[in-house]
């Protein structure tokens, strides 16, 4: 990984992630306080990276934006923001307005809260978040929006309700499968009889989000995304949180249910009954693949390239559920050294006993180099234990690697330019079946 640049960054800036997150909220209207091009940049990015999903109710080039220019850079942009909010309230119909800042107003020192609070005092459902692009990536932008909701939107002092949980950690549009993944995880929790507030699915409402303080537990499906907000939520609303990995497939779903069951002190027998039933169902469906799995020799070596959520979840799925050999796991987030061991630990002791090599690398062009380290190239010997048959499970940027090593490929992690994604998801037992379908489908595509 270069110290000096990021190659083909697999994320937007924090404003980009924040805008996408607000668009994904029920009735959410982002108001950008930024230069004019930010919204267009996000629309273009989603067009190329989010499985053909651009915007939603109010996203893409529809978002209100103060479009500040040189005049504001010289004289300050707060008046312009006030004007933009006033007009937005007349033109746009929404349930929650969220002011988000870009680089320019932050560098010049605009105070958005001085403006936003005036409107709040008049009873307007509006909050603000400071999300300038130099603060971090789009995953952090998601976290910042959840923090803003935690601070200024979620009602304080709600009594906790038994069995009610919040579900975080899947980032809208950055995970092209966000809708399906949230619903898959939500479904798992509902099997345990829990009432789930997942913020971004069609089943969620602003009333539900306002009452999120009544949850007895926050469940964060990510070692990174939503962690800051979950800690803040604990502080502001007294709701503890558990961190799990993204539960893709049968092994991970089972572990997920047990972990949540333990955290909520649910009846272990109930948890076991749910797991037994779902596993029975899962294997019943998997059963008829067995002939072809064997006859076509569908076991593969694999390289997994993905964000912190996917890299570990996909590796685990391949090794523990499919019995594959994922020998290299590339985590593409730029994670501080202190944060790396926790992520690597997720795939250190897999149930299958197989162990992968984890590297932290954001640059697609460098992955082949890492593979060559892990699996030395042939040196002209007659008998060579080749890295074949292989599979690349990553993003559309990793097609090049797949071509170089002659392996089929499936795009799952951002950017996904070459698949259309609506509500497909890979979480849960059934999600594992979907992923198995997609992976094997790529292998037999020319059959």
């Amino acid at each position, binding site marked *: 990984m270069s110290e*000096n*640049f*990021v*190659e*083909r*960054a697999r*994320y*937007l*800036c924090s404003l*980009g992630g924040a805008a996408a997150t607000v668009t994904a909220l029920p009735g959410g209207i982002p108001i950008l306080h*930024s*230069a*004019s*091009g*930010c*919204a*267009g*940049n*996000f*629309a*273009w*990015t989603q067009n*190329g*990276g989010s499985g053909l999903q651009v*915007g939603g*109710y*109010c996203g893409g*080039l*529809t*978002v*209100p*934006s103060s*479009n500040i*220019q*040189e005049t504001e*850079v010289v004289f300050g942009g707060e008046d312009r923001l*006030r*004007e*933009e909010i*006033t*007009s*937005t309230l*007349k*033109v*746009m*119909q*929404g349930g929650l307005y969220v002011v988000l800042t870009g*680089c*320019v107003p932050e*560098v*010049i020192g605009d105070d958005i809260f001085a403006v936003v609070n005036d409107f709040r005092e008049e009873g307007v459902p509006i909050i603000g978040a400071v999300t*300038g*692009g*130099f*603060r*971090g990536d*789009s995953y952090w932008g998601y976290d910042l929006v959840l923090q803003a909701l935690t601070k200024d939107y979620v009602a304080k002092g709600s009594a906790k309700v038994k069995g009610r949980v919040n579900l975080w950690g899947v980032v809208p549009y950055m995970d092209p499968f966000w809708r399906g993944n949230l619903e898959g995880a939500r479904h798992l929790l509902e099997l345990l009889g829990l009432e789930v507030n997942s913020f971004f699915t069609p089943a969620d409402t602003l009333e539900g989000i306002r009452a999120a303080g009544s949850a007895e537990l926050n469940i964060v499906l990510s070692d990174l995304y939503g962690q800051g907000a979950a800690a803040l939520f604990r502080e502001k609303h007294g709701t503890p949180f558990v961190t799990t990995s993204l539960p893709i497939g049968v092994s991970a779903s089972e572990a997920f249910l047990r972990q949540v069951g333990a955290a909520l002190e649910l009846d272990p027998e109930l948890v076991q009954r749910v797991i037994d039933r779902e596993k029975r169902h899962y294997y019943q469906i998997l059963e008829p693949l067995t002939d072809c799995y064997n006859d076509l020799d569908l076991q593969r070596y694999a390289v997994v390239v993905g964000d912190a959520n996917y890299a570990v979840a996909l590796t685990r799925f391949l090794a523990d559920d499919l019995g594959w050999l994922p020998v290299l796991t590339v985590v593409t987030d730029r994670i501080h050294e202190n944060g790396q061991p926790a992520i690597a630990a997720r795939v250190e002791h897999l149930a299958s006993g197989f162990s992968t090599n984890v590297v932290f690398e954001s640059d697609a062009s460098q992955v082949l180099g890492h593979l060559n380290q892990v699996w030395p190239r042939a040196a002209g010997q007659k008998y060579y234990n080749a890295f074949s048959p292989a599979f690349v499970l990553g993003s559309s*940027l990793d*097609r*090049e690697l797949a071509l170089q090593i002659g392996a089929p490929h499936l795009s799952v992690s951002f950017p996904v330019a070459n698949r259309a994604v609506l509500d497909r998801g890979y979480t849960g037992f059934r999600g594992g079946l979907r992923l198995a379908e997609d992976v094997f489908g790529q292998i037999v595509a020319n059959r």
Partner: protein
Amino acid sequence: MSYFDNKVPPKREDRLNAVIAHQDSICGLARKGKGGKSCLIDDGERGFTQGTICLLLPALAMLNSLPDNVVLLHSALGCGSCTHSQNANVRMGSNARRGKAQDGIWLSTALDETDVISGGEDKLERAIIEADRRYRPASITIVAGCVPGIIGDDIDGVAQRLQPQVSAKLLPVHCEGFKTKIWATAYDAVYHTIGRNLLEEKGVTEHTPQDELEVLREQERLARTVNLMNVSSMGRVDEQELERLLVSLGLEVNVFPVFAHPDSFVKATRAALSISTCPTHDDYFLGYLEERFNVPSIIKHMPIGIENTSLWLRDVAARFGFEGQAERLIAAEEAELKEALEEFRPLFQGKKVFVSAGEFRALATARLLQEIGLEVVGIRSFHHDHFAEVEYEKLAREAKTDYVVDIANVQPFEEANLLNRLKPDLFLGHANGNMTASKLGIPTHVIYNTGLAYIGYRGVYELARRLHRQLLNPAYNRNLAENLRLPYSDAWYQAEPFSYLNTRGRSVNE
């Protein structure tokens, strides 16, 4: 002194008095053009605005296409992430031109809070050196976004300092988004660095033919070689159509600059003529090629539509004395095309259409739509400058009744209001600009897509064929309209569409 002697090109609001906020009508703009005054329209300001694009995006669309080039964004992390969609065009375009789908390489110095305080030049220097070593490119375009524009990083100084240490040609490009509201300034920003850095011969001179006959042949070839200025919104299929027409006049074609190799740019200085395909795109550079290298140019008409393609071709032929040949070609092409279009006319008859895109493209396409039998009822141009005056005249001449022209840098709220009033039968919009009309249930089609044909005679036929297909079954959009709503309040649809034009600054002072 030439503009090209400065580090930064002028912005178009200064150089061309270009405007982005104005309400008018087709006849109004045509009249102003006739009096030679439309360039004197004062630009407005809206009191409500939606997000749009900045010059960085179209600049990157060009830069990402260059083979053997690395784009190095000097900005915060997110600037340039738009390349994720442009990369699809890079892959498709390289496949069409070189038989291999190849990803672009784009990098970001990802300026963070520390850099904002202490400056990003050191980081940029290290990034350039590492990029040169890692990728060994022919060129590195160093593209500045907003942040270096505010904190004062000098990308030109860095490039100059480092050039002796690296093998790639360093090309600084200024795309500080807050500095111009006319994003067509992007083309000037890119051409500015090309003009300053890529038009001189490199150290090694090319092989010079010694043989007298060879010298004569080369001179003769250059005397009929033309620069065909392509644009990033143009696919290979459109280039081929124009090449076909030019070659049939006996010309040799140098397609330039999108997807051209940086080392080959110098060829442009030796051509007999440069031909623009979009005056919005090329005027800054063609002026420089004339002034500095004596390469004359034609910058008039976009070859979209029957009349415009023929006019474009006639202008080129006249420069070489090929008028007779051109007339025969045009007559044959037009006759063949008009006959082929008959099949689609019945479905187009009486249908109303609204067009929305960059100014020249929108106007030339509107003219095409008139030609195939549709009635234009509204146009939204992303900006306005004097190059388009002649196009407004052409449209006004053929208009059944006067209709609205909205000069707006995207701003779909005005469009939603207008479409709700005008209720057109068809809408053609810019990429990422058809969503509003779609959700209103109007049949839509994208006004450019590099995989599809739009230009020349073939473009007329193919576009008509696609519109015919859209009109045959608009169920997708109709279903959306029945089941979704746009995020605008009911009050907004009742309000005048231009309620927010020229209100900027007022509400705060009220």
